[in-house]
């Protein structure tokens, strides 16, 4: 067994050296400056490398292995050209695990000709690389952490000169491994310069210093993005947050916490930066709203949300909460015809120097979206799509699920999601509502109109029949009253135009219309509803009286027009008639309204 392992090891070594020699002969790192930023819970290492091609042929790419001791903790890797503008010179990288070592292959933008040099900036971010030491502290104590690393740059190439600068969060350094020449000034430790360091050389260093910055991590992040084509994108994040620093030993004393400013490494609150247009923000957990939060519009337009967990987070304590907000879709959803593109950050800012161990992003598209394609800024796992059902859904909304691990702030980058969605489908939901209400009303209409009883209720029947009759009579008189009015208009016209012939013709028409209009009442009315019958008789009497009035009035006007009576006589007579008419109108109205 032991022999076998040895064989493997030898093989590995041979291959490793073979791999190194393949390129290391050609490339020499003339100068390397490394900055290890330990000011937060993250370890951010930036390498400024000056590469030179000492070989004969041009070099297209070079490799950058990650120290095997830390490769599990690597979260982010980026390489760019050091000279010129920072944003433009990003270099293509691809990674592979070569013989157990995670190695990035960085392709240069233009091939490096022999004798030339290029300056490259390589940035890496490690999470959970700092370990608290001691592991447990009391409330009063400060938090001390240890960084274990390498005094030299881990590279397969020979390095001519290299220096390493370590930035610390405080000047309180318990101890640090000295590799000559090394020095400490304030909160910076400098290693180097070291000359002509062989490839892949290692010299372990341990830096033990005070770091009270928040050691907050998100254990699990569930991010829901729900797209609605009615103009809204709802985002909801469910987070498990824990304090990964030194655990609290012994009791938590509120008195000391309030009075003596103890518990410096604990986290009381943190700031989450939301997108510029975020609205309707909520912050809650399983047992309700968390009332301790503040929302501010920052000067740069971002909305910053100051979140205070229900309790301060000490080492080892955890909490769980939900933050949600709405975004208008115009900023994130673009379309041409029925083709849509959703462009949003895959994860968003949670707190400064954040660490997300495990993230699941669920993007819920509107019902009926198809041809879904996702384009992510970095490698992630896409889980099988599923369906989500909510308000007024019939066949469910497609859900795209994306899982990612070990994320930091640098991963806040937009993804693109393309899909096809026919806009006509948007009408489905209103239509469903309309249909539901229509059916509801229809049922009621049917129920109210039809008689489902198996026995006959006489009194009820009579009453409803009488009601129908009243309606009928009323309609009849409504029509009649328009005719009456037409007649009166003619009379008035006659008064002004004095055209008797025209009037008589019109009057004849109206009269015949009135005659033709007969109120047909069933003969059973008298027996079924004698009261109504009486009233109808009375109504007909009044109706007749009104007709009489109208003909008298017409005659009077005719006589005036033909000059049979003079103006004064006419005025007197008309005044009398008008009075009578008013009384009649009132009686008629009253009768009809109280049928």
């Amino acid at each position, binding site marked *: 067994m032991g022999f076998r392992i040895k064989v493997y090891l030898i093989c590995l070594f041979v291959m490793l050296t073979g791999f190194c020699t393949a390129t290391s002969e050609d490339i020499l790192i003339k100068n390397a400056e490394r900055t290890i930023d330990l000011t937060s819970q993250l370890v951010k290492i930036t390498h400024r490398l000056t590469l030179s091609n000492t070989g004969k042929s041009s070099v297209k790419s070079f490799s950058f292995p990650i120290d095997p001791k830390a490769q599990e903790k690597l979260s982010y890797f980026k390489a760019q050209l050091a000279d010129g503008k920072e944003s433009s010179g990003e270099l293509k990288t691809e990674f592979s695990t070569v013989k157990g070592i995670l190695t990035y292959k960085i392709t240069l933008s233009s091939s490096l000709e022999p004798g030339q040099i290029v300056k490259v900036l390589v940035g890496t971010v490690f999470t959970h690389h700092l370990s608290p030491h001691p592991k447990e502290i009391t409330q009063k104590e400060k938090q001390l952490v240890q960084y274990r690393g390498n005094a030299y740059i881990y590279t397969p190439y020979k390095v001519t000169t290299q220096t390493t600068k370590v930035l610390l969060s405080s000047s309180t350094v318990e101890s640090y491994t000295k590799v000559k020449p090394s020095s400490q000034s304030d909160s910076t430790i400098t290693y180097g310069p070291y000359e002509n360091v062989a490839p892949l050389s290692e010299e372990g260093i341990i830096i033990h210093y005070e770091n009270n910055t928040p050691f907050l991590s998100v254990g699990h992040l569930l991010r829901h993005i729900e797209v609605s084509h009615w103009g809204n994108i709802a985002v909801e994040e469910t987070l498990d947050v824990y304090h990964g620093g030194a655990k609290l030993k*012994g*009791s*938590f*004393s*509120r*008195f000391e916490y309030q009075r003596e400013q103890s518990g410096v490494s604990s986290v009381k609150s943190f700031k989450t930066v939301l997108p510029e247009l975020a609205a309707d923000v909520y912050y809650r*957990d*399983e*047992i*309700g*709203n*968390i*009332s*301790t939060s503040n929302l501010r519009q920052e000067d740069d337009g971002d909305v910053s949300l100051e979140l205070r967990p*229900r*309790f301060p987070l000490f080492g*080892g*304590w*955890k*909490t*769980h909460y939900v933050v949600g907000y709405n975004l208008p879709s115009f900023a994130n959803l673009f379309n041409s015809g029925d083709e849509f593109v959703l462009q949003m950050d895959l994860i968003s800012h949670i707190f400064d120097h954040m660490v997300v161990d495990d993230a699941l992003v669920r993007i819920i598209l509107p019902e009926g979206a198809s041809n879904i394609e996702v384009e992510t800024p970095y490698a992630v796992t896409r889980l099988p799509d599923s369906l989500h*059902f*909510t*308000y*007024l*859904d019939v066949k469910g909304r497609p859900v795209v699920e994306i899982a990612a691990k070990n994320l930091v702030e640098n991963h806040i980058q937009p993804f693109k999601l393309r899909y096809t969605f026919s806009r006509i489908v948007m009408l489905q939901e209103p239509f469903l509502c309309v249909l539901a209400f229509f059916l509801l009303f229809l049922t009621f209409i049917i129920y109210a109109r039809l008689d489902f009883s198996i026995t006959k209720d006489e009194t009820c029947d009579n*009453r409803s029949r009488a*009601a129908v009759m*009243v*309606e009928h009579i*009323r309609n009849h*008189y*409504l029509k009649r*009253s328009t005719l*009456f*009015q037409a007649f*009166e*208009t003619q009379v*008035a016209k006659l008064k002004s135009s004095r055209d008797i012939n025209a009037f008589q013709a019109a009057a004849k028409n109206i009269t015949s219309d009135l005659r033709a209009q007969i109120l047909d009442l069933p003969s059973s009315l008298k027996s079924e509803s004698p009261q109504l019958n009486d009233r109808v008789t009375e109504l007909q009497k009044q109706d007749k009286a009104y007709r009489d009035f109208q003909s008298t009035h017409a005659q009077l006007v005719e006589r005036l027009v033909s000059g049979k009576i003079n103006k004064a006589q006419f005025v007197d007579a008309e005044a009398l008639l*008008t009075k009578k*008419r*008013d009384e009649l*109108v009132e009686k*008629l*109205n009253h009768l*009809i*309204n109280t049928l």
Partner: protein
Amino acid sequence: MTVALLKSQILHMSIEKQETLLKLAILTVAAVLSFSTRLFSVLRFESVIHEFDPYFNYRTTKYLAEEGFYKFHNWFDERAWYPLGRIIGGTIYPGLMLTSAVLYHVMNFLHVSIDVRNVCVFLAPLFSSLTTIVTFFLTRELKDTGAGLVAASMIAIVPGYISRSVAGSYDNEGIAIFCMLLTYFFWIKSVKTGSLLWSALCALAYFYMVSSWGGYVFLINLIPLHVLTLVLTGRFSHRVYVAYSTVYTLGTLLSMQIAFVGFQPVQSSEHMLAFGVFGLCQLHAFTDYVRSRLTTEQFNVLFRSVLMAAGSVALAAMGILTITGKIAPWTGRFYSLLDPSYAKNHIPIIASVSEHQPTSWSSFYFDLQLLVFLFPAGLYYCFAKLTDANIFIILYGVTSIYFAGVMVRLMLVLAPVMCILSGIAVSTALASQIKYLDAPRQGSQSSEKKPKKGEAVVPFRSEVAWTFTVLISLFLVSYTFHCTWVTSEAYSSPSIVLSARGHDGSRIIFDDFREAYYWLRMNTPDDSRVMSWWDYGYQISAMANRTIIVDNNTWNNTHISRVGQAMASTEDKAYEIMRELDVDYVLVIFGGLTGYSSDDINKFLWMVRIGGSTDRGKHIKENDYYTPSGEFRVDVEGSSTLLNCLMYKMSYYKFGSVYTEGGKPPGYDRVRNAEIGNKDFELDVLEEAYTTEHWLVRIYKVKKLPNRGV
């Protein structure tokens, strides 16, 4: 010249249609109002469950919704009453949870995404809307449509009912009042018609009532009482016979299906009236039958002999059953209904609950306002025209007013009948006057109307009518304002979140309870056991999801007493008890810093009393906790027993150096208004695990036994 003929043609609906429209409009508005007036707390705070018991109901509903009925039915909860546990399925009225779970599943089946919590929060308002509608139907059966509408509008906003049914107050009473009125409505219907259909419906409604609230006992005594009264007043008829026989048999069989009720309907004395009346009904009906077949003399002889024999047999049977324990003895809660001082003297745990205290007069006015005065008027109108139905409502009114006087909680049962009777009163009174409102105008026009009535011409008829109507309207308006004010001020605080006004008028929120519960939930081992006074049991198990020693179910007096003893003992004695109960954390409520007066120190005397009420706590005597002059003081003059007991130490640990108020020494308790007497002490067996921001909740961790030799 042209004057429009037939002016009012637009609204030419028939009177009937107008009436229907008006009726529907009023009812709809009342139902909507009854829903929306209960939303104060949701708008002011959030959609959250209130108080204590609702948290238990919420937790069980969640379990039911997630796990299904059978699991729920067989649920043994090992997280409560440690180490005894509690059989949840068999010790609750499941109606409430079933209702919510069904609603939840129906909604989610229709893809209306609503979570269990929101269903629970809004269930009570929803059911009060339904109650409003049922009240209308019930009152219409008793009187007429007008009275129904008035009663419905009144019950929509009556504070006595709102107090138990605001949004978030997710308790049995929320739906039970609906069930109760529904049962009454069906009962009145069945008494009026004698139809099997209505009686069966009544039995079903009764079943729903039994499944949802222990107060069903009131129903099962009231309905027989009604029948008995009908029998005694000679109003017994075949209709009543059919109605009662159906309701009793069906209802009893159905009610026995509820696991918590079990065989009580045939065993416990609370149900004996119903059973007795059922027998009486059979006898009465049989006697009537026999009487119609025999001559008077034959009948008298037979009647007397049968009566004697039956009476003695019945008495003997009752006696034997009571002695053998087949008929359950009268339970304490029932005794305290009949005799207000019973509980106080015998069962401290019942007396300690504030809602079991007798009602004060002011709270009658506070909860019912105008209804208090309209109630007798309504009774008068019912007496003036006695019917079978009216007798029922009179009985309901009189009995419930008695019970409401005994226990504050039963104000809830009184409120509906107050509304019904007041509705009848207002409607009848107004109807008698409102027709004279436009008397003079009609006088000139339709002179034939007056002689038809045959009334003497009363001077100022119209003016009197106007005054009366305006006065009643004013009263009703003031009722509305009062109800809204009471709802908003008194009954809309979730009690889980406290709010106060700061010096500058801004609102300060004290969210300490949830802070502590959430801390427990997140930062203690999943199986840790938390000891607290029983008031907080339900909240801890629902919000902190940790095992608790005692909770609001108060079914085991000795267990609660044990906790009381721990709180009342010195630290080392308490440690023994806590070790015995496997306690990991102890939680106390302390209001000394903020001035929150219902904290554990103020409840402490109950702990002492309950702790001392069992054999193992004989050594705990209430008098030891008083000063020699009989005062309960926490300052230097307080009794040393108090100053050294566990509760005192946990409440005031490190409080001695806190400045609470300007000009006062450190350690000044703002609730008791005293500087505490025992300041600088350390805890030996406990350590402070967490204290909330305003010190409202303090959690202590029980230390493990020290290693040997350390």
